[in-house]
């Protein structure tokens, strides 16, 4: 019960936010924060919990975005069905990628994911019959939908806010589940010492491939949401290396291997990014790079990781104090 209390409070807060602030720009930033939380959590599942640093998550994001938008434009399947289908497609695509790249370890794994992501980008750029090549896809109108008897207004932010919030909740809940599951324990063992994990009988390849599939589902669903919200994708927008890096940074700045880390990282980096973008148009990535370096140098456990530790210490001190007096 006590474990569920912060979750209930979080859900209430997310539900109450749009009622408090009707400012469109504020809602836009919230939507971005939720989307980046999903992507940061997707990367964190693999990079933070299993210690497998991927530099190629943009490929999974891009696959989700392309599947969602192609299903809608070519087959008429509405994006709210397309988003989970995009996630499933990314999870399916992650199986061969995982079987190839997981034969390598450490930095070699990272480099191989980079190469795979570049290959996916080249394919999207050149298979024009499927992907429209560099031109990309544009959604001109979203399908009509009625919710509780009212037609949904796709020009407002509120419907997107609801979808993004649901996706974020899914991402955070699945990370929380993973942390407490048997698979999560396997991953911690793999992260700390892969040979030892194998020696005690953990099927490390299976554990890593499963985790990658979960990570890919979240990244692909995030990509589907991107296509749904921005209504335009091309290889440069959804498949570039920079996107993979941003996912890494959000998880890293928030705190590797924590449940709340990606949310904190996304709040922090997206707010800074949007503030800088408002003022200078370009340059928010300068701050991403800078924060990345500062965090690794001074705060390797991330903002949320450090905050949680300080909180736990304080609580222990209060308890000790109480015990000594009582």
């Amino acid at each position, binding site marked *: 019960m006590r474990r569920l209390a912060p979750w209930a409070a979080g859900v209430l807060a997310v539900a109450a936010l749009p009622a408090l602030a009707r400012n469109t720009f504020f809602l836009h930033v919230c939507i971005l924060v939720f989307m980046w939380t999903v992507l940061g959590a997707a990367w964190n599942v693999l990079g933070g919990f299993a210690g497998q640093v991927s530099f190629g998550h943009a490929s999974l994001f891009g696959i989700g975005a392309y599947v969602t938008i192609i299903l809608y434009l070519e087959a008429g399947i509405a994006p709210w069905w397309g988003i989970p289908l995009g996630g499933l497609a990314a999870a399916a695509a992650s199986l061969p990628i995982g079987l190839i790249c997981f034969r390598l370890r450490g930095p070699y794994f990272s480099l*191989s994911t980079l190469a795979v992501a*570049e290959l996916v980008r080249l394919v999207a750029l050149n298979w024009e019959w499927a992907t429209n090549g560099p031109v990309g896809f544009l959604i001109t109108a979203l399908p009509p939908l009625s919710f509780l008897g009212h037609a949904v207004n796709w020009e407002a932010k509120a419907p997107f806010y609801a979808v993004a919030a649901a996706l974020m909740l899914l991402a955070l809940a699945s990370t929380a589940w993973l942390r407490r599951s048997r698979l999560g324990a396997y991953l911690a063992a793999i992260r700390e010492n892969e040979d030892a994990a194998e020696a005690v009988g953990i099927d490390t390849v299976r554990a890593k491939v499963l985790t990658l599939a979960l990570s890919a589902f979240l990244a692909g669903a995030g990509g589907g949401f991107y296509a749904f919200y921005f209504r335009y994708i091309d290889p440069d927008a959804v498949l570039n290396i920079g996107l993979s*890096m941003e996912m890494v940074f959000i998880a890293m700045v928030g705190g590797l291997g924590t449940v709340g880390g990606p949310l904190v990282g996304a709040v922090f980096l997206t707010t800074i990014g949007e503030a800088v973008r408002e003022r200078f148009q370009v340059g928010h990535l300068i701050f991403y790079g800078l924060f990345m370096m500062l965090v690794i140098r001074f705060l*390797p456990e991330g903002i949320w990781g450090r905050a949680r530790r300080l909180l736990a210490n304080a609580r222990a001190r209060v308890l000790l104090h109480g015990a000594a007096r009582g």
Partner: protein
Amino acid sequence: MEAFVQSLVSGVLTGVLYAMIGIGLTVVFGVMRIINLAHGEMVMLGMFAAFWGRSLWHLDPFLSVLLWTPAMFVVGMLVYRFLLRKIIPGGELNTLLYTAGLSLLVANLALFAWTGDYRTINLPYALTPMRPFGIAVPIPAAIAFGVALAITAALWLFLSRTDMGRAIRATSQNAEAAVLMGIDVERVAVVTFGLGTALAGAAGVLLAPSLYLYPTVGELLIVKCFVIVVLGGLGSVPGAIAGGILLGVVESFGAVYVSTTYKDGIGYVIFLLVLLFRPSGLFGVGRS
């Protein structure tokens, strides 16, 4: 036949420059076990140094390489001393992520300062290529080839003949044994990082007249660079030379005989295959 020789020649010409960049990455990896993701940005800085030297002071890029190579050496030493040194004990993955941050920072600072415009350096002697034996050889590429060969030869002499060079090779073979033999590993690391950066910068200066310059060009180069060092075996200098020339030739043949659009893809496929089946490099000299 003529197309074959032509693409072989132009492949080797670019290959030697690729090799220079690769050597920079590979010596740094050998000594410090760092995969420097910001290496491509160092090449980019060299390219822009050549550009500004040309447009502000009318310096010929092939003369200014004499100025920029030592300058980049100092930049490298400073980067190591003030940014990287404290990070390295934190482990391979932390360093990898840290240099990813550095790469993003430098590329976007450059984007902020110099805008994303594509620039070129126009040299008067670049307009008509030489035609020895009927093969077109652009003059800037030929000069760059010569200078790159000279720099690589000088580096070879430095590594094999001087005390510092021997210390670098010893540290790269076995860092603990090197410490026990009285080598100041910290100093070796500073010099090696300076050397790697200087090589990247020099290659950038030499490449500048033949390529478009833009602040995010490093992204493209760093991936090529990984292909090169993995082909040759991480940590091996001769491997990086062979890998660089091989990639140059493969790309140039790929562009002629397969398609220009998949030119870069060929490199990545070879890269994955080598990583999977020969992780110590084609020549079996690298360490994984």
